[in-house]
């Protein structure tokens, strides 16, 4: 399958053609090692610096503050481990209940290693309570790790307000901005962020490349131990073609930021029409404090995998937080943290757009979706709130959850 309506850009994105063109010569012609003592290798060192400049420009950072990594997960792990290693006396971490597994599962591991971790809750619209944050902080808090924007709901956290509170308590502030970079303008020069993770394949660079912003002056100990690459902050021979690609992708993302309203307009067109065309449909997450490209919609009384496979028949790609699609038996931890009723939770679908999404594609989804939902609801024993069975269960489950 080649042609499809790709509305799963929070999962991964297509490599921009300009990005591909920029990286290809470094796979074919200029394959040297930047650490080499000959011109053939040395010349690629310069393009790495160019890429670093391009990323620094997108983030409003200094060139020396950018460290290349292999992916978002590595960035998160390196940042969190570095912050902890630099403050061995502080054994407390604050994060949120809705982080990506790269942060959440690492924090669970750190609990086993003796750290105390506070997982901040979110409200029904996926937002943090800053009073809860403040109450959780102590002088012993080493690190606060909060995502910029949530991958599933698109909800954006008030990062600078959080950062101001964090700074009052002297903790290091890490932000997983994998979903936000290229969608929200950023300027590290006026920021409270100490460490920031980004990933290439979410912004039209290939998979296998990412970067970490490390504020000048922040103590950093590398995760990977080896050579002196990246000023000793990330050992391993540079992935030159991917670094060139990430640089180009960052430059294109910066250009595109002025047109981000276009994505938002298409997202809103999709969302408002789905809500008006299909009954018993709700938006998950705050309606305004959100990424411009993401909408997470709960189609009540049906299950997400069935919706996705039905859409797949029409070549439409989206994703779901349902239990059946997760590979585990539990529905998405993010949607559960919002406290959504199960009738909404299992039938939630995320559509995430990109700058390539067209109005025609959105209209095609709007054409197909009502039929898909009607068919599955006709199959479901819970096809309305009148289903006594459903109501009883819902009540029982919610009361158990407290």
């Amino acid at each position, binding site marked *: 399958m080649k042609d499809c309506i790709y509305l799963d850009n929070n999962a991964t994105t297509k490599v921009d053609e300009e990005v591909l063109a920029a990286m290809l010569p470094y796979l074919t012609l200029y394959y040297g090692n930047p650490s080499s003592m000959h011109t053939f290798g040395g010349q690629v060192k310069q393009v790495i610096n160019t890429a670093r400049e391009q990323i620094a420009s997108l983030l409003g950072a200094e060139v020396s503050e950018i460290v290349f990594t292999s992916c978002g997960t590595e960035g998160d792990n390196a940042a969190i481990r570095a912050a902890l290693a630099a403050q061995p006396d502080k054994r407390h971490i604050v994060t949120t209940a809705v982080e990506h597994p790269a942060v959440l599962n690492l924090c669970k591991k750190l609990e086993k290693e003796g750290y105390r971790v506070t997982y901040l809750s979110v409200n029904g619209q996926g937002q943090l309570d800053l009073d809860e944050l403040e109450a959780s902080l102590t002088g012993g808090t080493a690190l606060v790790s909060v995502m910029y924007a949530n991958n599933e709901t698109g909800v954006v956290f008030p990062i600078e307000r959080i950062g101001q509170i964090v700074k009052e308590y002297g903790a290091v502030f890490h932000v997983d901005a994998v979903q936000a970079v290229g969608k929200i303008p950023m300027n590290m020069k006026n920021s409270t962020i100490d460490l920031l993770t980004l990933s290439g394949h979410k912004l039209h660079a290939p998979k296998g490349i990412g970067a970490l912003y490390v504020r000048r002056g922040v103590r950093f100990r590398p995760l990977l131990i080896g050579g002196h690459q990246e000023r000793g902050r990330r050992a391993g021979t540079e992935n030159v073609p991917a670094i060139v690609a990430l640089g180009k992708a960052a430059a294109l993302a910066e250009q595109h930021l002025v047109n981000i309203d276009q994505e938002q307009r298409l997202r809103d067109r999709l969302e408002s029409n789905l809500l008006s065309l299909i009954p018993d449909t709700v938006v998950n997450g705050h309606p305004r404090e959100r990424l411009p490209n993401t909408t997470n919609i709960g189609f009540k009384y049906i299950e*997400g*995998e069935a919706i996705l496979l039905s859409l797949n028949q029409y070549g439409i790609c989206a994703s779901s937080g349902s239990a*059946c699609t997760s590979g585990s038996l539990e529905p998405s931890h993010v949607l559960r943290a919002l406290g959504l009723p199960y009738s909404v939770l299992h039938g939630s679908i995320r559509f995430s757009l990109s700058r390539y999404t067209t109005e025609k594609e959105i209209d095609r989804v709007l054409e197909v979706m009502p039929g898909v939902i009607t068919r599955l609801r006709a199959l479901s*024993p819970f096809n309305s709130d009148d289903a006594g069975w459903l109501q009883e269960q819902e009540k029982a489950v919610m009361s158990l959850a407290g």
Partner: protein
Amino acid sequence: MWDYTNKVMDLFYNPKNQGTITEERAGEKVVTGEVGSIACGDALRLHLKIDEATQRIVDAKFQTFGCASAIASSSALTEMLIGKTLDEAMQITNRDIADFLGGLPEEKMHCSVMGQEALEAAIYGYKGIALDHHEGDDEGALICTCFSVTDAKIKRVIRENKLTTAEQVTNYVKAGGGCSSCLAEIDDILEEIAREQETALEVAQAVAIKKEKNPEILAVKNLTNLQKITLIQQVLEEEIKPLLISDGGDVELYDVEGDRVQVKLKGACGSCESSTITLKHGIEARLRERVSPELVVLSV
């Protein structure tokens, strides 16, 4: 993406027998079996129309909340059921449903288990047997609180599908798939069943040796206590239970003291006037023949 067979995808896109059955003519009865829950993310409501004279399923329909494999399993089940007698239908296992679909991914086997359970619920409903939830009952202690799975259900799926690991149990009945705190208990149950099966094998070997030496004697003496109990359990499960269930009853081994076998009669048997006859002529006679002529069966 899951590796579904073409049959699964076909039945998901074009399911057979979806809907409900409302019409009921004289001599027919419509029953419904419900399993699953919205919390678990899958649920099935199975409707059967039964011809009372022939005890045959003349129509079957389903309503399913769930993923593609849950919908396909439900559709498959209805196709398998139409035309079968209740006794034949009771023989259907989750494995049969999965086979009908050309197989299911391991992680999705619980969809076929759901089909088998809805079928059982519907037939029990028809026979007027209340499905007990085994609350406070040793046989049915709640193991997985996340998905409300009892040890009775776990044991059954282990036996019927020859499961050997806790991961498989999770794939089949979801137990252990939530907070995972019951995985150790599931390991214990697996071990218990493995030991049980070893004992059963030893008994079978002992019986075979005895038969060889004294062909005229079918029953076996000189079994250890454990072997005797296992053999009684095996005869009850494999030979007596199916007969009783087809008559709307059920039986459970309560205790064995020497030659006194105490059983619990359940369902229709519990209240049936002929339960003493069932006890003496049905269960006792069979156990005497298969285990030991000295056995006395009592109801508790």
